Each structure stands twice: as structure tokens, then as C-alpha cells.
């Protein structure tokens, strides 16, 4: 897009985020409190076993049904200095892998007795091995999710894989995971996922009601809370937000794509909005909002989860589905959600996102969808450059 930073029509497109936040102190302060406490505080509050879930999707219902709290482990943001992990993983490996490892070396996963990794990329797979060797007291599992969901064998395979996880968790925690408990957990997480879908619906329909940081915090809190508490939080927040009367600003409607694993710093999410964008859809914390609709609450619960993975998963860079190419899905979402542009936000060194960017970019160019590439690292702490780029991009569209 052409640079327009020196345009005589240039104006600042800022929203007083803090003022908006002040309008709902109880909800947001609760969210911030949960996020500030992080995984160890979440585990401490639970008073039972806790298991760390590396991104992206994890079958949290199985852990929850066993009485364990599934906790999302998304690296350490900028909060740790790497003193051990750099010697294990090279400079060209993503930040989230290294900082997740560092958390364990620095004993900052207290109360979390296990970690589960998934078949999302080559780094995550090797990280599971490095964890297993260096922390033999932790329960470690690695889950292979199907990459061929249309094969006649996929559903049986996925069911068997989830049964294997159920068995391993049962042995680790020395407790039986009943079908009833599983169905109960599915119901609990269904409710929280449905409310998150409502939150995103609100962003699409009236993005002025909920700013990006608030929405992010509300979703991210769910990775640290038991589902019932997350449901309460979301219900209260949605009720407040639906009453919120805020004037719509002159901003472009964008979809942010690429940050499904390593999470951008909150500052970057804030900057995207302040620089002139309404984020009407994104893939932040994608694994915890994985299903397009509810998982079946009756019948064989393992089969229900497996079926949901094969047929109800959201398109993602970590999941192949030849019937629904991701780049075509992106173009469809842009059309359906009336988005004006796409901001690609891959984490530095994230191969799945960086590869997908090429096909995403092609489809955007074919469909004449404006787009901007914004690579980030969880530990980045200055956003001036990003702000300039986004502002220029947004203004070039606003004044077209």
C-alpha cells in the first residue's frame, strides 16, 4: 500500500482505551488479575492437579474430566531472560518454544505436573522430547492429530488417539475418567466456547463495543480458569458490553491472521487498534476457541470430541484439510465479515504461519484485498515501527 504518512489530511485515529476500560472495572480487573497471576497462580487456586497445554488445540475436556485443570502455556512473553533454553534451541527457533522451556528450567511452572504438546510443527514435537529428557518428573504427552480428516480411517484413528490420552492421564493421576465426567466437561467447555463465539460475533457486528485488548484478555483468561469460572466472567462481560454505548470511529475493519500459537504482546494488539483498525476477527488463542459449533453432548464422548476435531475444527495453519483450503477460507471470511483488509501477524520463525502467508497473499492479490505483513516476537517491547506501518496502511485505505 502506498505510504501516506505525510498526507495533509493526516489525523490521529486514537481511542482512549483506558477510558473504555474504566467503564467496566470489575470485569476487566478480574481478567487482569487472572492474567497477571499466570499459570502458577492458576494452578495454586485450583488446589488439584494441573496440566500445561502447549498451543494450539488441546483436548482439555479429557484433563478436566480427570479433575485436572488444563492451563494454556503460551511461552513467557517478555517476562523471562533465557539462561538455559538458548543453549538447547538455536537462534532460528521461535521464541515461544524457548521461553516455554525456560519456564521449566527456572521452576516457574510450579503446581503444573505435566505438559502436553501436539503435532502442530517440527519445533513443538522436538520440544516435547527436550522437556521429557530434562524434566523426568513431569508427565509429558505428545498428541498426533489427524492431517487427513477426509480419510475413511480418520474418525477411528482420532478416537483411538484420544482414548490413548485418556488412558495415559488416568495412569498418571491414578483416577478413572468416566464417560459421564467427560460429557460434563464437554458441556462446560461448550458453554465457554459458545460465549467466546458470541464475543467475536459482537466484534464483527459492533466492534466499537469491545476493543481488541479487552476481547483478547477475556479469551486469554479462559486458558487459566476452570471453564465454569470463565463462563461466569464472559457472561458478566457480555452483559456489560451489550449495554455499552460507544460511538463508532472512522477505522478500517481488519482480520488479523497468523498468531495462533505464539501470542503477540498486548502492546501490539493495542497498537493495531489505536493505529486505525477495528479487528473484527483474528486467530489469537485459536486452540481454545477451536470448534465452529458445539461438541456433541450425548453419546460416546471420546467419539464426539474426535468427530468435532475432524469435522468442526476452524481452519488453521496447523491443520490440513484438502476440502477447505485455508487461503480460500480467508477470502470467504473477508467477504462474509465485510472486512476491508487483512493484517498478517506471524510470529518470527513460525514456519506454519510463514508458509501460509504465501498462499494467503496470492489469494488477497487475486481478490484485491489490501494486506499488511507484521512479523512479531512475544518479547518485542517497542511498537513505534509497527504503529507507523499500520497507521500508514489504515490511512491509505480510509482516504482512498
Amino acid at each position, binding site marked *: 500500500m502506498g505510504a501516506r504518512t505525510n498526507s495533509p489530511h493526516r489525523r490521529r485515529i486514537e481511542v482512549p482505551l483506558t477510558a473504555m476500560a474504566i467503564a467496566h472495572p470489575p470485569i476487566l480487573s478480574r481478567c487482569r488479575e487472572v492474567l497477571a497471576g499466570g499459570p502458577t497462580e492458576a494452578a495454586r487456586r485450583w488446589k488439584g492437579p494441573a496440566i500445561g497445554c502447549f498451543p494450539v488445540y488441546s483436548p482439555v475436556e479429557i484433563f478436566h474430566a480427570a479433575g485436572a485443570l488444563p492451563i494454556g502455556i503460551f511461552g513467557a512473553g517478555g517476562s523471562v531472560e533465557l539462561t538455559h533454553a*538458548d*543453549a*538447547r*534451541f*538455536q537462534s*532460528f*527457533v521461535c521464541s515461544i*518454544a524457548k521461553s516455554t522451556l525456560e519456564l521449566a528450567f527456572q521452576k516457574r511452572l510450579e503446581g503444573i505436573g505435566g505438559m502436553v504438546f501436539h*503435532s*502442530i*510443527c*517440527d*519445533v513443538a*514435537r*522436538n*520440544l*516435547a*522430547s*527436550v522437556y*521429557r*529428557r*530434562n524434566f523426568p518428573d513431569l508427565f509429558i*504427552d*505428545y*498428541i*498426533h492429530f*489427524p*492431517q*487427513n480428516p477426509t*480419510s*475413511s*480411517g*480418520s474418525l*477411528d*484413528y482420532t478416537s*483411538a*488417539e484420544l482414548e*490413548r490420552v485418556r488412558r495415559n492421564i488416568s495412569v498418571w493421576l491414578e483416577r478413572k475418567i468416566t464417560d459421564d465426567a467427560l460429557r460434563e466437561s464437554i458441556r462446560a467447555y461448550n458453554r465457554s466456547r459458545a460465549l467466546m463465539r458470541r464475543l467475536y460475533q459482537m466484534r464483527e457486528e459492533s466492534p466499537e463495543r469491545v476493543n481488541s485488548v479487552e476481547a483478547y484478555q477475556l479469551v486469554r483468561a479462559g486458558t487459566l480458569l476452570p471453564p465454569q469460572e470463565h463462563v461466569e466472567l464472559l457472561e458478566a462481560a457480555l452483559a456489560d458490553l451489550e449495554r455499552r454505548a460507544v460511538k463508532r470511529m472512522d477505522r478500517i475493519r481488519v482480520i488479523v491472521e497468523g498468531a495462533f500459537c505464539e501470542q503477540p504482546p498486548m502492546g501490539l494488539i493495542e497498537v493495531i487498534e489505536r493505529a486505525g483498525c477495528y479487528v473484527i476477527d483474528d486467530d489469537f488463542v485459536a486452540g481454545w476457541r477451536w470448534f465452529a459449533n458445539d461438541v456433541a453432548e450425548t453419546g460416546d464422548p471420546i467419539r464426539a470430541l474426535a468427530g468435532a476435531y475432524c469435522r468442526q475444527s476452524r481452519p488453521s495453519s496447523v491443520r*490440513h484439510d*484438502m476440502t477447505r*483450503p485455508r487461503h480460500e477460507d480467508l477470502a470467504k471470511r473477508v467477504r462474509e465479515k465485510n472486512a476491508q483488509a487483512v493484517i498478517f501477524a*506471524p510470529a*518470527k*520463525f513460525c*514456519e*506454519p504461519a*510463514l*508458509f*501460509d*502467508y*504465501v*498462499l494467503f*497473499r*496470492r489469494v488477497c492479490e487475486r481478490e484485491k484485498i489490501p494486506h499488511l505483513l507484521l512479523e512479531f516476537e512475544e518479547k518485542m517491547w517497542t511498537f513505534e515501527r509497527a504503529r507507523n506501518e499500520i497507521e500508514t496502511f489504515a490511512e491509505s485505505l480510509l482516504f482512498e
Partner: protein
Amino acid sequence: MADYKGTVHEHSKRIMGAWYDTLAQAAKTGAPSAYIMITGNCVEILRAFDIAPIFPEVNALQLAIRKQSLPLILKSEEMGYSSDNCAYVKADVGYTMEGGIGKDAKIPTPNLIVCNFVGCNVYIKWFEHSAEFLKAPLFMIDVPFLREKEPSKEDITYVVAQLKELIATCEKITGKKFDIDRLREVCALSRRAEEGWARAKDLCKNRPAPFDAYFDSINMMGPINVLRGSTDAADFFDAAVQEFEADVAAKRGPLPEEKFRLVIEGPPPYPYYRSFRDLFAAWGAVAVQSTYSTVGGIWEWGYRHDPERPLESIAEHMIVHNLCNRSLLERYSQIRRYVEEWKADALVIHSIKSCRLFSAGQGDMRDYFVGERHVPTLLVESDLEDPRYYAHAQMKNRIDAFFESLEHRRIVSMSV
């Protein structure tokens, strides 16, 4: 420096050249062809239908060895590929965009793209992109990673189900009916080649080793991974074993003197293959085992394709018996056995930026071998395809310093 080429090298070149001729012919005639990857592949199925297999990885490495990869990589980066993406993919995409694939080229446009997803997640992206650029149908074979000691029966059933779906697709493409007896014949030929390759590797336990199990293995990786299931490949390994047995009897190795025995982990820097090799040869260092030579299959522990149960044994190969579908810790065990059983003096880890499957976590591997196994270990970094990541002077310094310390250690232990 010594000339490493022997009759095995020439023989390999001849049969691999014949394979390339087949592809060039298919480009002209439109005879059926399919893309497939090296790792734990099911080339036997394509061969049973006389579908010519095309291996984009082999094309990419050929481009690197011939020092043609960089402009193609740059071409891909102009299309939006990141400097952090696998350069094998970028070289292949650049080659495709420059007209390297198609009717008037040496490589045909494939009738089918078979993505054998065996460990490497980049495979999925690579072939999704190929399918998009070449407008060819993509067939995914999802191979569950080996996450317990043994695969479950459901893992095997899942892969076999997909192989049967692939067979149905091949029937449609070729108009031929599947013939299980033909597949049995192919598997028997695979088995013969595997026997030979395993025997050749085993001969490297001798002093001196008859060939370098890293650098010379490249001559054998073509026949075992690309031509497996053909008479050419089976005959090649019979001849290679004969030659290596004669070398062992005559105490003949690839270098005038074998001073150090190494295990090498990681793919080689193809753009600087010869000069990298010379850095080791200068110290009389010979690789007696390597992990890279097992990306396609691990044959040295006894696994063979089984003509009596062809589909199940193909599935077992894809899930269990290749380096890429096994965990990093399984690789530590593999290397440990290599060091102990092949009596190696040291481990060299060549860490490459392109392939995170291989390299992510190799610092931990070094820590394990130095700290827990007390194996002298050198870790060096470059790339297998992108020449920009190879710094010759730095590489030489590191390797020289490592061998100086090994030599010093040897002198000290002898004087004690």
C-alpha cells in the same frame, strides 16, 4: 585431496540418470507421474502402477550441489516466502516458477501429488503449495508420529486405510486395476535392496570403514529411497556390497588413513558438499555412521518390506522405521548405538537452519552426549540448500579446533 569416486558412485549416477531420463520422457509423453517425498515413502505403490515417482527434495538437492539454488531461493522470497522458511521448498518453488516443470521441461507436471506426511510438517505446506501452483490433485497420507515405543494397531489400520484410498486414486489415474501380486514383487525387490544397504552399513564397523557413511551414503540414498522396489536398485546394492566386502578384505577405506571415526548427525551442506567433506578428510576423519542416511528408512535394525503382507509392512515402514517419524529422544538412542557399536571417536552435529525437524533441539542433544555420555561432540551450523548460511573460514576453524583437541586427547591418553 583424495578422489572419493569409486564404481559405486558411477553405478549410482548411471541408474539415477536413467530415472531422470524416465521423467524427461514422461514430460514429453504424458505418461503417469506423481510427486512424493523421501521420508518413509510408499514408492512401492506408485511402482506397482508404473507411475513415475518424482522427488522434489532430490531436485532441490541437485540444484544446491550444482550451485544453482540461490537465484531460485531469491525468486521464492520475492513471492513472499520468508528467509526463515525451508530453502528446499524455496528452491523447488523457484524452479517451478522458472519453468522447470512441465511439458517442455525435464520434470513432468505430476498427475498426482502424494504427500507422505511422515514426521516433517513442512512436507504438508510444500505439497499444498505445489498442488496450488501446478493445479495437480493432492493426496494426503497422514502418518501418526511414533509417540509410544510401538505403534498402536489403530495407527497401522489408519495408514493402511489411506494406502487403500491411494490405490483407488492410482487406479483412476492410470486406468489400471490394482494387482497385489505386482505389489508383492515390488516389495520383494525393496527387501533385496534393503538387505544390501543394511549389510553395507554393517561393513562400516570394520577398520577402516570401506566407505564414508555420511558423504558416500549419498550415492546409496538415491537408489534406496528413489529407486527402491526396482531391479536396478536391488542389483545396485548387490554390486555395492560385493565391492565393499572386497575393500574390507583389502583393508581399503575412502581415505589413505582412517585416523578418526565419526558419527555425523544432520543433513550435509549441499552447496559446499565437497569443501565440507575436505575439512574432515584433511584430518583423516571418516564417518562410520550417520543419521541423515536413515531419513528414508532405518534398515540396520532388521526391518524389511514384507511381500507376504505388503500394505501392513509399508505402513510399518512409514510409521516406525525411518528417522523422521521418531522422536528426538529416539534419535539420541540411535546415535548412541552408532557411537557404541560402530566404535566412533566423536559425534559431529551439522545443524541446518532449513530443517527444524532435524535441528530444533540439537543443543540439547549436544548437552546429552557431552554431559551424560562423555562423547566428544562438535556442533556446527549452516544450511543444506541456501549457500548464504555457509561460512567457510568459520567452519574450518571450528572443525580444525575440534580435531586438534581430539588429537591432543589421544596423545595424552597414550602417554598415560
